[in-house]
């Protein structure tokens, strides 16, 4: 339903503002071009997206995600001190992070939900500090190779669609760090306010 409101709002604003600003003809052309452009974009993105899904399937079958997840465990235990002794929860958390890093979005979400459910058992109905941290970490993107964006750039005629990688990594790292810091700080302020 939320998307209906957003979409209707976008279209209505375009028509009203377009008429008011004297861009009516351009809006009319835009409506037709947009639909055609969408199919064209998806077609040019298709190759690289399919290829990458194939590579990800190889990663999944060969246990690369599990290996990465084992390497991440010690770091993640520091982030979730309340659950560092709960093996199953930490397994789900580290598998979630490794799937996110590799861009296995379809695998990451169920794993994250499993971890969230286990964390919620301790504090039913209320998001504990650990659960807030889990959600904040999942709302920040840590995908190492952002293929969808690269395929959009390729579709627009870019010769080296992956030349943005260092910028993406830096921005992702900053974003995750700020998210973790904000969660830790707000957790402290929140507790003080309640007392």
């Amino acid at each position, binding site marked *: 339903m939320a998307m209906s409101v957003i979409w209707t709002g976008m279209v209505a604003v375009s028509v009203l503002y377009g008429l008011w600003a004297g861009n009516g003809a351009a809006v009319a052309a*835009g409506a037709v071009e947009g639909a055609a452009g969408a199919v064209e974009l998806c077609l040019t993105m298709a190759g690289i997206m399919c290829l990458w899904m194939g590579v990800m*399937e190889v990663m999944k079958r060969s246990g690369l995600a599990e290996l990465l997840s084992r390497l991440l465990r010690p770091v993640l235990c520091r982030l979730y001190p309340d659950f560092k002794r709960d093996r199953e929860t930490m397994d789900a958390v580290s598998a979630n992070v490794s799937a996110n890093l590799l861009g296995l979005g379809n695998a990451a979400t169920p794993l994250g939900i499993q971890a969230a459910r286990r964390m919620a058992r301790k504090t039913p109905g209320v998001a504990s500090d650990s659960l807030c941290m889990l959600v904040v970490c999942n709302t920040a993107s840590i995908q190492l190779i952002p293929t969808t964006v690269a395929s959009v750039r390729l579709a*627009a005629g870019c010769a080296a669609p992956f030349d943005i990688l260092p910028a993406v990594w830096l921005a992702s790292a900053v974003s995750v760090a700020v998210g973790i810091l904000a969660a830790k700080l707000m957790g402290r302020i929140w507790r003080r306010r309640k007392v």
Partner: protein
Amino acid sequence: MTLFFQMVVPFTIAAVALWGMAKRVDVYDALVQGAGEGLGVLVKIVPAMVALLTAVYMLRASGVLEALGELLSPLLTGLGVPPETVGLLLIRPVSGNAALGVGAELISTYGPDSTVGRTAAVMLGCTETTFYTVAVYFGAAGIKKTRYAIPAALCADIAAFLAAAWAVKWWFG
């Protein structure tokens, strides 16, 4: 250095294939099966992209995004963010497909190697659909009191947008 980043993808593909062979995985079969699933994903996003790109092109043509960008331009320019990306900033935490549509439009209009195009690409690459993620996780865990999760997640989003703009300037000069 540039060559290194150009080689990241072919290197990853080769390394994953070799690793798969070492682990006795039927690499080719997995590759083809995954690619087939990719086609399924694509078929699912085409209808959404048709709807959203129609709205995005109309919005762009009406001039309202430019007006909004101009309105916020002193603030955004002061922070080092190209004001053209204002539409992307607003839609990104709400809808992933809509953000992809807005981003794709920016990238094709300004060019993939322009500052605006690159910034839009990095912004898309370093953020997630925050509100969707929050809804899925808290919904599945039966959480009513979300405490500070949303404000903290939005802090990370704002940091991501600023860092994206700065990182593009740093990396591409």
